[in-house]
């Protein structure tokens, strides 16, 4: 007799990524790896040389003479509507009348190979009359040059409360943008089908939006367009709305030529054309008591949206809803500005404005503490959200199940904070060239899309008669392990080994009308939808099993690949076959919508978030006061992922998110020249963290025994974005080190990214104050 081996538990277990073997052997296919269909054409873009100009002519005649060129399309050739606006209309795929940034796509070429396409693109002559651009964020703020009117969060009476406060402190910082630098650049492959149908393989986090906008561009119904994505080589928000540009160009060229068309951007084009993280100018006016407790605060968060709206309403809303971070503001007014500049249209990026909002809170806390000569850690603790009376956010949602106070005690103990604080102070007191800094920063991140209607998801599940399971849902895999986690959920429901569940490529043909895989909500939403589908099928199978095993339905359990009742059992696969014979459906959809949430966008009040994820980081750094160079020495992280579905995947998200945040705040610098040309459009000039730039000593712990109080899938919490902001601790540690060069009460002037150059200037300023 063969004993069934004990199944490893499906959830709460560190299973490997579902594609790990394929990744390690090079067998995983990304869009550019797919076998090219017969006659496939390749694409090159013609983009604007001007930051702002009126187009006077596009002459493609020389390009079209080149052998191998099949088409050059401009706005006039788009069969349907030339609009890919994600939230508000008015964002053309190809520029019409005016160009609004350097890199703005004006025309696209399809040719038999990439080289021919590139040569042809260089032969397209574009003429224009330059207009005056607005390139600088401050200039846009001063001129009130906006893409949308300002937005405001208000609670209490900040004006009078500010006037009454014992201390009033004003401050500002600039926080830079960030290129996503997903390692796989944007790509799409469009394949014309029968009738007017179009199949698009798109590297997108939002297949439904690509479907919707491709249909609009082609002037067909949505049912004529299918969008599919198996995996992306990283996305981080950059393939949410921006993927539509690439898919749209491929689809239009495919329609015009009647051939399959591939569009893969090379790195430089990708960085020149696509939007990035919004840079922000953050200013505040805060009133505090002698202990550093906030009485009232007014903040302005000015975002560089770039030339168009794109997803900026969501980004600014999330920035505003995270400008409190973990702190209670008794009276508060937060204003968000949607600044228009003639640069790339900024877009979603991990955290979606949340990180920039939190930077305002953390920079302000640091300034309060240093101005009043208080310990920054104490000031943070004193301002934490508390019980009723101190638990209302600026958007009027009470903070429930706030875990940071206990987590803070835990991480201070595990990181040996008190002793290290003394050691750092003693080291700095020696007054040497090297200085150290130590800082703690908390993260409280709201989970759910800020827009309630986006919090829904669907899944489609089939059990085959051999007991194998095919899983599909609206979420996309970009490396974050979503497919693995959702498969774990399904395996747990059926009591099957994980390898019995086959995650399949996301496609609009199977699960329709989906939300993007974003806002960290991929597992919360799709995991729940898949679970509901699996439970529906399990319930039907349990009826058949009860009859087959001669037991009550309530006695039927699904475990270890078997279905049992009492001491009788049947293998899962056999039961599936029995269900088929009994004409019981083994296929189901699942649909989930997040409960409890609501938000009024006119008053900016409500409960936008189902729950909060929490995290804390303690970081230590050393700086060289003569060069501004620095090193991250150690970081301790304690992060709250509820009851982790997969601790290995979750820790990977924390480590990767933290390092990406560290890049944003310390080394990744976007530089545009005076004509609006992005000069940092390749990794040669845009510095991505490498293995040498990260703390050698990185200790990551998941908060233990901490199931989500809200009924999420197996009581887990979202993890994609929250850890990104743990890197603020590094930036604060750098400020701490700089502060040691100045007199007591000195507040370092350090914008982000804190490059060696900026650190050196801040050190100099501190010394000059002394």
């Amino acid at each position: 007799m063969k004993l069934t081996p004990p199944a490893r538990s499906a959830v709460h277990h560190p299973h490997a990524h579902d594609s790990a073997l394929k990744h390690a052997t090079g067998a995983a296919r990304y869009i550019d790896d797919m076998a090219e269909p017969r006659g496939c054409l390749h694409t090159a873009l013609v983009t604007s040389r001007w930051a702002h100009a009126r187009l006077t002519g596009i002459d493609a005649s020389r390009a079209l003479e080149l052998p191998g060129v099949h088409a050059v399309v401009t706005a006039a050739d788009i069969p349907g509507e030339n609009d890919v606006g994600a939230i508000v209309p008015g964002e053309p795929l190809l520029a019409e009348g005016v160009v609004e940034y350097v890199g703005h796509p004006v025309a696209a070429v399809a040719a038999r190979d990439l080289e021919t396409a590139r040569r042809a693109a260089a032969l397209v002559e574009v003429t224009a009359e330059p207009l005056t651009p607005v390139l600088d964020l401050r200039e846009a703020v001063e001129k009130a040059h906006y893409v949308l009117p300002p937005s405001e969060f208000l609670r209490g009476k900040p004006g009078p409360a500010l006037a009454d406060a014992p201390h009033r402190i004003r401050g500002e910082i600039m926080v830079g943008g960030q290129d996503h630098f997903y390692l796989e650049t944007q790509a799409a492959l469009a394949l014309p089908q029968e009738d007017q149908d179009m199949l698009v393989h798109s590297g997108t986090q939002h297949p439904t939006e690509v479907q919707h906008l491709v249909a609009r561009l082609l002037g067909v119904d949505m049912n004529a367009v299918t969008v599919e994505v198996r995996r992306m080589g990283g996305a981080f928000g950059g393939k949410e709305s921006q993927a539509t540009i690439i898919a749209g160009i491929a689809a239009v060229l495919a329609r015009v030529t009647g051939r399959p068309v591939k569009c893969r951007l090379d790195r430089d084009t990708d960085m020149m054309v696509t939007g990035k993280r919004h840079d922000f100018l953050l200013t505040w006016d805060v009133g505090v008591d002698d202990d550093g407790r906030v009485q009232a605060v007014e903040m302005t968060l000015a975002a560089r949206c770039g030339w168009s709206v794109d997803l900026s309403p969501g980004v600014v809303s999330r920035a505003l809803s995270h400008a409190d971070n973990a702190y209670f503001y008794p009276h508060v007014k937060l204003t968000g500005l949607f600044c228009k500049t003639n640069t790339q249209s900024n877009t979603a990026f991990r955290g979606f404005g949340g990180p920039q909002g939190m930077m305002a809170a953390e920079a302000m806390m640091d300034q309060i503490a240093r101005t009043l000569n208080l310990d920054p850690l104490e000031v943070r603790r004193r301002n934490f959200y508390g019980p009723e009376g101190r638990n209302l956010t600026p958007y009027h949602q009470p903070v429930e199940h706030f875990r940071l106070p206990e987590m803070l005690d835990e991480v201070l103990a595990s990181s040996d904070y008190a002793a290290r604080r003394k050691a750092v102070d003693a080291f700095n007191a020696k007054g040497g060239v090297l200085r150290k800094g130590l800082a703690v920063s908390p993260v409280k991140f709201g989970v759910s899309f800020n827009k309630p209607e986006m919090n829904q998801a669907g899944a489609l599940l089939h059990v085959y008669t051999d007991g194998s399971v095919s899983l599909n849902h609206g979420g996309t895999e970009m490396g974050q392990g979503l497919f693995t986690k959702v498969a774990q959920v399904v395996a747990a429901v059926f009591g099957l080994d994980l390898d019995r569940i086959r995650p399949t490529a996301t496609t609009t043909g199977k699960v329709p009308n989906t939300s993007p895989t974003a806002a960290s909500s991929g597992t919360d939403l799709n995991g729940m939808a898949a679970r509901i589908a699996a439970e529906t099928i399990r319930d039907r199978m349990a009826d058949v099993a009860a009859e087959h095993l001669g037991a009550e339905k309530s006695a039927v359990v699904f475990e270890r690949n078997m279905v049992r009742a009492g001491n009788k059992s049947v293998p899962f696969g056999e039961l599936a076959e029995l269900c088929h014979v009994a004409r019981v459906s083994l296929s189901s959809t699942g649909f989930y919508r997040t409960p409890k949430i609501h938000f009024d966008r006119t008053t900016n009040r409500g409960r936008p978030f189902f729950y909060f994820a929490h995290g804390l980081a303690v970081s230590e750094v050393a700086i060289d006061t003569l060069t501004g160079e620095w090193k991250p020495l150690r970081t301790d992280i304690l992060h709250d992922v509820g009851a982790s579905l997969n601790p290995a995947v979750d820790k990977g998200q924390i480590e990767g998110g933290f390092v990406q945040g560290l890049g944003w705040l310390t080394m990744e610098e976007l530089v545009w020249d005076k004509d609006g040309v992005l000069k940092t459009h390749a990794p040669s000039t845009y510095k991505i963290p490498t293995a040498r730039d990260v703390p050698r000593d990185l200790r990551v712990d998941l908060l233990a025994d901490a199931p989500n109080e809200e009924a999420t899938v197996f009581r887990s919490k979202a993890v994609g974005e929250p850890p990104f902001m743990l890197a603020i601790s590094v930036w604060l540690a750098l400020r701490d080190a700089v502060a040691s060069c100045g007199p007591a009460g000195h507040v370092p002037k350090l914008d982000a990214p804190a490059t060696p150059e900026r650190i050196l200037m801040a050190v100099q300023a501190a010394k000059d104050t002394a």
Partner: protein
Amino acid sequence: MALTLNMTVNGKARKVTVESNALLSDVLRVNLGLTGTHVGCDTSQCGACTVHVDGVSVKSCTMLAAQADGATITTIEGLAAPDGTLHPMQAAFKEHHGLQCGFCTPGMVMSAVDLARCEPNASEEQIREWLEGNICRCTGYHNIVKAVKTGLTDMQSGGKVAAE
């Protein structure tokens, strides 16, 4: 001008006729269908396209295919044993979760295998230094460094049995 090149790729003799300006990465990916070699930056910065040419790691996106005429080339597809047994470095990346989106993984693995040739007992610092030419945007490198450490050790002990 078209050239005919002969090379041994993953143990097999291959003949390709390509333009003189063809890049090695394109020849591997397009002409030979070895798409495990990825192109992330096209300009020798990210390391996703790393392969071995005569046993030495090379960024194939900036090497002309013509320069590899007569050479012996190993790509990620040629690393595992013919029966599918993973190379110890591949097994270590899988085991230690040294991958997320996986786009950097083939280049990382190929680069790490070459480290074993140069510095079989590399310290953590040497591993980090060696990997400077390989960018990973997802993992934060923590698990990659762990994987490389394990991979180096396992390569010396003749490889762990890691049949899949």
